[in-house]
């Protein structure tokens, strides 16, 4: 039985096809048509809604794309849509601000923007162009050119009014807690489709042993596309978002451990703290909505050759803790990928967590994402470097690229050309040449093979320039 709050009303849903998205539920089942479908693929943000989750005694408000969120993931959460913001006849401050700043033209993207603004406002973020770009890159507007919306966001953020959601917080927390106290696997069944949402790792292992063909669902940002774009029906889904052990982040002196159900948003602070250069990637990868839903482990697990995190994890020497039944094993991320979309994952096995060793002395880590559009775009190439230079000599070189082969792949020739060499222009130029031996990229709509290789080589040059003169800005993305 699925239980969640739709604004302040408790919904219990028994029979519903687990393939139904939150968007379809809203528009077709409860006739809330304020939330719009623009793409049904998580790329435009017209369907943005906000989900509030328990965080101790507080609530954490997150914007998500309703179009790629399976209904079953709502269990124990509060779903807030654009219809819920106006209260006692008064517009919510974020709505008022959009009106006053002329932030809507055709109005179709507006409910999504309003909901992203609402989350932004509830999270009390300081409205600078950087924070705004980060939080709104997943909301496309084709009419305004964004200026008026940026004004509206800046204007609203100065408003310190407490809204009805704050006033009702205790009530909401109490209700969500009472749902959460029922610590059992939630199941949904309809039309011959099944959905399981276990709460502990043992139950998850067991379910996967019983149903080895089940699709694992974490953020759903990829799996949902099979449903909405591929028109497939997923017969059996196991949702890992409530499995306590998989929601943990641990940090000690030597490493970070990120549970498989941890979203980008949840782990980005700890990742950036340890690897500051990840900040740019983690603000450009997907959008705020996608980062609120998507998981690091999901980005690894589905073995997409164009995923951005695998090259990063490969050069950071990250490992995967894999579990099957009661057995666990540890595997290098580099060894996880075998061929296009084929991984080392065995039947009934799943990723439990990702283990990332902390940076060692003299290690320089950088990652460069090259894409057609700055924000919310899939990389033409994503180049990650982790090079250890001791007394001017390259002691260790790890280089991995995404978008350059049928799997995320290390640049072994390039690495070899650097190892034990003096870190200078000549070495670097030679290593750039060697990189051509590592990859035979394809041409597609994102980029030509020629550009992919050239720009990857130039990423190494950029890395060199960045190390050479740290004061200079050498990234257009950071230029202000």
């Amino acid at each position, binding site marked *: 039985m699925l239980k969640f709050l739709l604004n302040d009303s408790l919904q219990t849903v028994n029979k519903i096809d687990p393939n139904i998205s939150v968007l379809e539920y809203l528009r077709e089942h409860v006739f809330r048509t304020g939330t719009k479908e623009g793409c049904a693929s998580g790329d435009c943000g017209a369907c943005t809604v906000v989900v509030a989750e328990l965080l101790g005694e507080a609530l954490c408000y997150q914007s998500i794309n309703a179009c790629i969120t399976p209904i079953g993931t709502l269990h124990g959460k509060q779903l807030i849509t654009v219809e819920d913001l106006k209260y006692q006849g008064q517009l919510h401050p974020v709505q008022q601000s*959009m009106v006053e700043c002329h932030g*809507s033209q*055709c*109005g*179709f993207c*507006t409910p999504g923007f309003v909901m992203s603004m609402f989350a932004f406002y509830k999270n009390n973020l300081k409205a600078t162009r950087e924070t705004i770009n980060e939080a709104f*890159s997943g909301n496309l507007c084709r009419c305004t050119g964004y200026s008026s919306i940026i004004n509206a966001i800046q204007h609203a953020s100065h408003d310190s009014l407490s809204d009805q959601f704050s006033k009702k917080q205790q009530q909401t927390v109490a209700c969500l807690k009472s749902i959460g106290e029922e610590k059992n696997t939630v199941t949904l069944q309809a039309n011959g489709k099944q959905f399981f949402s276990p709460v502990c790792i043992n139950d998850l292992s067991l379910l996967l042993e019983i149903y080895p063909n089940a699709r694992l669902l974490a953020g759903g940002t990829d799996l949902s596309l099979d449903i909405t774009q591929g028109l497939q029906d997923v017969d059996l889904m196991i949702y890992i978002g409530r499995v306590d052990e998989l929601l943990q982040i641990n940090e000690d002196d030597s490493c970070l451990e990120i549970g498989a159900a941890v979203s980008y948003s949840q782990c980005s602070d700890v990742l950036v703290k340890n690897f500051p250069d990840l900040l740019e990637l983690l603000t450009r990868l997907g959008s705020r909505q996608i980062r609120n839903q998507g998981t690091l482990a999901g980005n690894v697990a589905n073995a997409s050759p164009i995923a951005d995190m695998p090259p990063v994890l490969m050069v950071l020497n990250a490992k995967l803790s894999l579990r099957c039944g009661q057995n666990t094993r540890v595997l290098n991320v580099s060894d996880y990928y075998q061929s296009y979309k084929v991984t080392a994952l065995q039947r009934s096995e799943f990723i439990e967590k990702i283990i990332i060793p902390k940076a060692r002395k003299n290690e320089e880590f950088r990652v460069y994402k090259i894409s057609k*559009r700055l924000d919310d775009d899939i990389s033409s190439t994503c180049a990650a470097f982790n090079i250890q230079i001791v007394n001017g000599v390259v002691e260790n070189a790890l280089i991995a690229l995404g978008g350059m082969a049928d799997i995320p792949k290390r640049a072994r020739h390039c690495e070899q050309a650097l190892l034990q060499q003096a870190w200078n222009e000549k070495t670097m130029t030679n290593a750039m040449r060697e990189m051509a031996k590592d990859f035979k990229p394809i041409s597609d709509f994102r980029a030509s093979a020629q550009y992919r290789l050239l720009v990857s080589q130039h*990423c190494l040059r950029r890395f060199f320039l960045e190390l050479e003169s740290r004061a200079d800005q050498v990234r257009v993305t950071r230029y202000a």
Partner: protein
Amino acid sequence: MRSLVDVSAAQKTPMKGGEGQSLKHESAEKHVTGEALYTDDLVTPANILHGYVGLSTIARGLIKKMDLSQVKAFPGVVDVLTLDDVPGHYDIGPVYPGDPVLADGEVQFWGQPLFAVAATSYKAARKAASLAVLEYEPIKPVVSIEEGLQAKYFVRPSHTQKRGDARKAIDEAAHRLQGELHIGGQEHFSLEGQVSMAVPTEDDGVLLYTSSQHPSEGQKLVAQVLGIAINRVTVDMRRMGGGFGGKETNANQWACLAALLMHKTGRAVKIRLARSDDMCATGKRHPFLIRYDVGFNQQGLIEGVDITLSAACGMSPDLSDAIVDRAMFHADNAYFFPAACITGHRVKTDTVSNTAFRGFGGPQGMLGIEGIMDDIARVVNKDPLDIRKRNFYSDSGKRNMTHYGQTIEHMVIADLVDRLEHQSDYRVRREQIKQFNAANKVFKKGIALTPVKFGISFTAQHLNQAGALVHVYTDGSIQLNHGGTEMGQGLFTKVAQIVATQFQVDIDTVLCTSTRTDKVPNTSPTAASSGTDLNGMAAKEAATTIKLRMINFAATHFSVEQDDVNFIDNQVIAGDHCLSFSQFCQLAYLHRVSLSATGFYRTPKIYYDREKAQGQPFFYFANGAAVSEVLVDTLTGEYKVLRVDICHDVGQSINPMIDRGQIEGGFIQGMGWLTTEELLWDKHGKLLTNNPASYKIPTMADTPAIFNVELLPNSPNTEATVFHSKAVGEPPLMLAISVWSALRDAVSSVSNYQINPLLDTPATPERVLHALQALKERRTP
């Protein structure tokens, strides 16, 4: 009615919301609350069916077999529709034939609708539509403009505009430039896609809800495909979630198919296209190939041009004739050509039929000449801005007539550009950029100021007409209806302001209701930036008719001169008598004065003789200019637009904030067209960039950090437009040409501005890097 509502007595309250004020969009509060209803949000009849289309999976060929048995057998499917089921006329080409509502035995583009299906749910209809078993006899498709040009594969005959002997002028000029430029197309990507709902009526007719810029054409075509009279079909269109030209003719097919499925099943049917199918099955902005040959003197003054504009029209004419004409009309942009030969080819490609898109060919025509201006400047070693200024149309030296014979009567551009040049610190920044570029190895900056002169009017003369209907009720409230459609541009707001101004009553008094073909018939599309010019005038006319009746009545009733009857501050004052507007309406009603009127407007002066390629196709020109500054990373080709300054001529603005929104939005949309929005087809004619994951329109981060927009002050339209305003929908899109020019400026800096970079559009980071590499290689042979 026997009794009237109580109304307030006369009280002088200053009128709120007349013309010239920055009122919020009439639906703003509904937008932000989700209460604004779009076609897919409307309450549906209980027995509604959902329609979907089966699309072709080749670009060109004959259909050998179309087995729909699995489609029919799919759970939930109620019926399927093939071309044989169409009772009436099945070609829905808007001007010329060529657009069958479903493929007629042969496939003409990848993603062409072959059949339609009606089912009890959207999902069932969509899934079923994918189950057809199709066999084709494929023919190799023509995908590129070059292939089509070579084979003289055209959808319409070519057209040429000529002045003097261009060839001779070019041959005799001191300098000559030849080249070509490939300009990419653009997907409209309105956030709301195509959607229509047809509801049967008791007269064997249809009540049609459709997201359309042209309800009257939808109405006519639905009547034609059903084989019924036009009066049986009523279209209701409250608002679109964006249009941009993509719902001018391209909305019709889904309206017709919904009506045909409705006709066949006897039930209401709604069709809504999923994004990826929408992107494959509907037309886009035309890609163009421009070839040019230009002669100019040592000062950079053009002496002759020979420009050939070839558009990829897709598989049918649609609106391509007018679109290529408009490209030709704008091949000069703001510059005088002493001798010119402008040729336009309408190349047929075996791709979806390209259609209207904000600017309607104008942007492509302009891009060519703006690139030429920059190139001339580099040849004669001058600042491109000086070359532009030198070539502007002007009143002196007989340099005020276009190559198609229209005299420029209101010279705005030179003063406007001077103003922007100073306000944007163009010269100082140009010097700073040169210094920056000399000092930086990796980063290069570029700057460009480009003007826009855009002709306002439909080039099809008869479309320049509009109707409106105004009712005044007995409580003094006013209902307004006109033939224009609201797609976000603020048309309803502006026209309501115009009507409120006529009666001098608060804007809240006026309600603009959905566009309906049974209220205002035979309307033109809301397109060509003409919405307010045409419908505003028609509504003003309707209001004036009622007002004159009221004045006439008041003069008689109160025995005063007509001149002594005044509408002011929500009151009607007749001599010593002072009534609230609502009191006065009641009085007029009781004295049997008609409080309802239609209004009609047609644009004066315009004509174009296509045989002679001469005329005055435009009532007036809208003008503007922009300065863009960019930063380019020479390692990767990535770039950032750092600052944009715009000065734009909207005449006397009816609503400055709405106009500003059009300018900002148009600019960013134009920037997307020229930078990141890349449409790519494979060699089989399949669109590869058919969703927002692969087709990238600008996001918020692409809006420049410094974005100064000014409406040119004190510049009323010298023509008698509504309150002397100017059209604003399309022209600002072309201000974004400054971004492309600035990118080329930055790229050419690596050759110390000596070499003209080749930079086709969209100028993706890849193309920019390619251009940089090409210059570097030429520099070091």
